[in-house]
């Protein structure tokens, strides 16, 4: 990348151009697992946003120090460190949130999207762009999870964020893992269609890393 990076473009890239879930198709496993409700999706998204940003920043700072031959273990260890720190700080000071999220936090260590951004972006870029990329990608992941959560919880349970809106459960299958795959496929298809129809994009192109 050139020296004159447009930060706004970089930020938007994580949300639209290379949305981790809908475009890069990375970390689909947690995206299906936690989005049976809006709240879970949102909390997971926030945790990922934080770990993502911190990992990107650390990797970027250490990029000349990390030996290229052992870069992957180094990245994973950096991620694991931040995840552990967040887990412990939250367990001590944010009990209510920790009770909701504790299950998911440790899983973030193995998220493909975080390793992928460390490898593809932060290890080659300076601090500020890496920070923006982390925030953008994290926001993209967060939005994708909330979108999936809204879709699945509304159809599966007739509620949003735990508040009942529809009587009964219109389509119980949507909150099962099976429904997660349906929702993911439909959502990806719609977004590609919108992209082609209104924004002249080519649509699709999963894994489109530079």
């Amino acid at each position, binding site marked *: 990348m050139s020296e004159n990076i447009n930060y706004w473009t970089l930020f938007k890239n994580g949300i639209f151009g290379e949305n981790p879930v809908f475009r890069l198709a990375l970390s689909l496993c947690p995206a299906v697992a936690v989005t049976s409700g809006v709240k879970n999706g949102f909390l997971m998204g926030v945790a990922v946003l934080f770990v993502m940003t911190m990992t990107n920043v650390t990797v970027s700072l250490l990029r000349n120090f990390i030996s290229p031959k052992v870069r992957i273990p180094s990245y994973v260890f950096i991620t694991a*460190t931040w995840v552990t720190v967040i887990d412990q700080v939250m367990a001590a000071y944010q009990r209510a949130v920790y009770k909701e999220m504790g299950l998911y936090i440790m899983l973030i260590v193995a998220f493909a999207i975080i390793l992928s951004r460390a490898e593809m972006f932060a290890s080659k870029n300076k601090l500020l762009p890496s920070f923006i990329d982390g925030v953008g990608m994290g926001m993209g992941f967060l939005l994708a999870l909330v979108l999936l959560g809204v879709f699945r919880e509304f159809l599966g349970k007739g509620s949003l964020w735990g508040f009942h809106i529809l009587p009964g459960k219109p389509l119980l299958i949507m909150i099962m893992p099976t429904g997660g795959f349906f929702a993911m496929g439909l959502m990806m298809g719609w977004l590609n269609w919108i992209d082609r129809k209104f924004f002249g994009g080519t649509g699709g192109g999963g894994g489109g890393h530079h």
Partner: protein
Amino acid sequence: MKDMLKITLSLVAIFVVAGLIMGLTYRYTYPVRFQAEKKEKDEALKEMAPDATDPIKVAGNWSADNKPYEYYEATAGGKPVAYIASTAGKGYSSFIKMLVSFSPDLRIRDVKILGHEETPGLGDQVEDKSFLDQFKGKSLDQIKLVKVETKENIQAVSGATYSSRGVTKGVKDAAQLLIDKYGAGIKSAMREVTK
């Protein structure tokens, strides 16, 4: 050779620094966490027996399926108002941890779920008041899970049969324990009354 040394050093340096960061975080967050967890446990116990005026005491340890639990006595002015037992039952994907409180005549007063890792959206419905309230006032022989509407027994939540079974099993174990421990005393007390 020189390369190898460099790689090793860079890895070791990262691991040592990361280890230090994690260790320090643990060192400073653990006491706060420990206090918070203890406070939460006390509050949960207090909630199970709001009419207890004396501090709730641990009365003993017990175990089911090789898992250790405790039971407690809640008293008001020296007289027992409730017996509480911590317990758990295996649901669909985890052990559902609970506190169960019993009135002195060994009927269930309240069931509180402390933690579980059941499927969000399905299994976690056993936390709903409508399911847990079914236990109130029931005695040991009434704690039976059925799949139809019932007033006598416990009706399973549809879509969460395994989790419902876990809760019911945990409550039943606790009820059995407390009857074993305190049942005799109550029977003799009742006999005294009828005399």
